[in-house]
């Protein structure tokens, strides 16, 4: 169960540039670490992050093992109309997490 902490302003004016911040719990195991038994710990990372606003892609990121554990991302978008902002993370071992926040634009 991945916990996510999302920060999106609840309200915005049309055309206003808003900041979206998202933090998700995930080990981001690089696949380069060696465990106590001398064996490589297998890779387990988030591979992609996507954000849509009213169904349209507004920001996407391709992660790598160089992204820190419990990945944090902050980015911007222009508030157009009221709608749902959906953030989705997908990764190794079938990992998928999605959070939806609503924004009121008036």
């Amino acid at each position: 169960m991945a916990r996510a902490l999302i920060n999106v302003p609840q309200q915005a004016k049309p055309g206003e540039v808003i900041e979206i911040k998202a933090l998700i719990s995930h080990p981001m195991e690089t696949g380069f670490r060696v465990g106590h038994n001398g064996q490589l710990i297998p890779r387990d990372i988030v591979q992609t992050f996507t954000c849509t606003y009213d169904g349209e892609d507004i920001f996407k990121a391709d992660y790598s093992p160089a992204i820190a554990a419990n990945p944090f991302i902050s980015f911007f978008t222009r508030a157009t109309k009221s709608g749902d902002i959906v953030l989705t993370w997908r990764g190794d071992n079938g990992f998928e997490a999605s959070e939806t926040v609503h924004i009121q634009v008036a």
Partner: protein
Amino acid sequence: MKIGGALVLLLSVTAGLAAEIAPADRKSGFEFMGRDTQAMQTDDTSNPGMLNVLDGGALWERPEGADKKACASCHGDASQSMKGVAARYPTFDITAGKVVDLEQRINLCRRDHQKAPELAYESRDLLALSAFVARQSRGQPIATANDARNATALTQGRKLFNERMGQLNLSCAICHDDNWGQKLGGTSIPQGHPNGYPLYRLEWQAMGSLQRRLRNCMIGMRAEPFSYGSPEFIALELFLMERAQGMAMESPAVRP
């Protein structure tokens, strides 16, 4: 050279009580971090420890054990009932008949009032609950009880803090009382205050308790670390809180 100088200092300190830090000179570990790490802690929307606090908030409401009681059933709104609680632990507990820390107190509640199994140190749920409870004391001054029943543990804690141990034959005091602010390798030595626990340590890439950090310290000194929940650790935790009396709680803090 900084590293050589520190080593010479360490080797030349003779046995005996180290000089305690004057109350006016006390600094939180926060002040020894870079600006960006400080920003990570102060921004609740980006502090990784807040993920554990969120988890803890959910656990607070979840009915547990044979009686299907949640923490909230007795304690209601944690922001009211738990305010200042973490700032006064460890302390003597009548039920247990001894000094207990916050984690042990949570387990006593689970065992006695929820009829639920106790949670292990560093388990996901215990970290979440202790992070959630400690968060409610953020900004509150550390206020260990002036209780005669804490005296024995406090004395033992002070003794352990000043006692040399391990292959490196160092005591906590030698680094954290005598050489705070100097460099150990590339890192600044902080004063070793417990005002941010449980905290997100960047080195662990996870949340951890004060006892986990103390185990790291002891391994760093090449000493056999005390076991989780041991009376030695409780005594040390109590002494550290007493030593940080009056400093503001920062939980959940972020530290390198």
